[in-house]
């Protein structure tokens, strides 16, 4: 039983990290019809800048804030430099964002050096609690709580505030929103920045969880995030949370029982969704426009 709990918590923690990456991806896609292949690069930048700030300041909280600021700034830069020139052209968008991903991950090697870096959780999050037979590793619980918090706050903003209303309306019909006198381009930029910040937060949280960070991890996690977005439904926020937990769980359990199949299982999930429900489990969009 304790094994089951441990694996479940492990899977939940991984799922939350993937969720942080996938949520930004899916909202940006829903609103702007842009699939950002550079999203994983923002994730890796969050991890590297966070670890760097942590080494300097010694405070994990400052590191998290620093990573979020990095994400916001890089997001603004990406939207302005890379996405803006190619609105409306899918093929160009896909091509250019992948190119930017390449530049982002190579820049990581230039700025922080080509070798992988190690990272450890702060003392107060290190170690574990013992609850009967079940061992709860503090840092994993922390990730799950942060993920739930981010989900809660974002959900609240989307559903209960005016800006959320505008974003949701924009996802449904951006021309209509624009014709009501709202600067949809500004909304795009803000959403892009928030999405990037979430990815960067995911990155900095991952660093002490996996122990090492390296430039290629952006791409690895981006693949998982794409699988999540397909399973959950493009543009569906809650869908991305549930699918991320599903993928995280599948990853954790398969890695323990049949480690060869952990990626394969997620691929099979994605295949099944693509065959039987191409719009995703929770999505309405996704059919060829």
């Amino acid at each position: 039983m304790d094994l089951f709990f441990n694996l479940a918590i492990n899977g939940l923690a991984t799922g939350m990290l993937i969720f942080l990456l996938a949520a930004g991806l899916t909202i940006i896609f829903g609103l702007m019809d842009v699939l950002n292949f550079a999203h994983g690069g923002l994730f890796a930048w969050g991890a590297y800048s966070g670890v760097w700030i942590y080494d300097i300041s010694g405070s994990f909280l400052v590191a998290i804030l620093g990573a979020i600021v990095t994400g916001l700034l890089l997001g603004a830069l990406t939207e302005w430099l890379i996405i803006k020139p190619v609105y409306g052209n899918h093929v160009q968008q896909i091509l250019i964002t992948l190119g930017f991903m390449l530049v982002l991950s190579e820049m990581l090697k230039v700025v922080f050096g080509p070798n992988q870096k190690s990272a450890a959780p702060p003392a107060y999050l290190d170690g574990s609690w013992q609850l009967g037979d079940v061992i709860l590793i503090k840092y994993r619980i922390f990730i799950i709580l942060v993920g739930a918090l981010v989900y809660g706050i974002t959900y609240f903003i989307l559903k209960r505030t005016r800006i959320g209303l505008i974003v949701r309306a924009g996802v449904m019909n951006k021309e209509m929103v624009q014709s009501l006198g709202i600067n949809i381009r500004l909304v795009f930029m803000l959403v892009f920045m928030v999405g990037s910040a979430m990815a960067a937060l995911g990155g900095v949280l991952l660093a002490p969880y996996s122990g090492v960070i390296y430039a290629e991890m952006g791409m690895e996690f981006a693949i998982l995030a794409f699988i999540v977005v397909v399973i959950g439904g493009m543009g569906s926020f809650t869908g991305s949370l549930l699918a991320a937990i599903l993928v995280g769980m599948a990853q954790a359990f398969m890695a323990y029982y049949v480690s060869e199949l952990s990626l394969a299982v997620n691929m099979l999930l994605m295949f099944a969704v693509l065959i039987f429900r191409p719009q995703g489990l929770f999505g309405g969009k996704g059919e060829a426009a």
Partner: protein
Amino acid sequence: MGRSTGIYVIIALLLAVLPFVYDDRIILSLVMQVFIFGIFAMSYDLLLGFTGIVSFGHAMFFGIGAYSVAIVLNQNEATLFYLLLGTLLAVAVAGIVSFIAGVLTLRLQSHFYAMLTLALAGLFMVAAEKMRSLTGGNEGFVLMVPDMFIDTSGPTLYLTCLIVLVVFFFLVRRFTQSPVGKVLMAIRENEQRVESIGFSIMYYKVIASMISGIVASIAGVLYVLSLQFVDTSVFATDVTLDALLMTIIGGVGTLVGPIIGAGIIEFAHHWLSDLADVHWIFKRWIILFGIVYILAVIFFPRGIVGTLQEIWIKRKYKKQQGKEATKDKNEAAS
């Protein structure tokens, strides 16, 4: 068509003579890599340039080709027969995988094919790492090749690569000029319109996906012959990115462009790596290419060959207009 075919044949013949008159082995094997990646980039162009499909996992077909031949040769004797058998296996596996990827995602928006191929390539890479008994895992393995290809910088392998490149170039060009090729280009231009005329888009897109995958696997076969070694790096995203860079920089939808792009990237890679001793920034030469690539996507989406063609056609058109104008004037005067 007649004149351009003639020019291509002459260039091919000049390249065929090269190993007999020029014996810098490093440059010759570099030219051979250009042939191999030319085939690979050309297969990518068939998807991106002629059909408008973006694949981010093209490396997997390259890797399928490389591993199929390597494993078949490694498990059996290194003879020409097993080389051909391995090539057949490569073609079959690449055909099946590209069929599955196409059927699953090509009816959806273009993002889906890109994502699925990216993920599939990742899956193949993991599979190659885990199936150690067959693939040797991360370290890969050195393999024996048929005797005639043992000298990796000798003329036999060089000529084989050149011949395969030329044959596939003309085959693929013939394909793009065939009725099916015309439909593919029409799909690239306006999918809805082609569908409303009554073509089954899915069918044509899957054909493009399969042919592209199969040609890419052939490039993988030649690649493994030229290295006599295989490891998991053939499945890496870098390989796909190479094909992307070559195609975009050379010229999307031109077939010749990607081959020229392959030449530029391979030689630039070679020289920029040499410069790494001068300054460490050249080790990260890929950044330079990434930036060039991004600028190309925004400002020169047609690449080198496409942009040149555009200029050429414009000039020809202007000349024609000028001629007609003078003719009109003359007629008016008389």
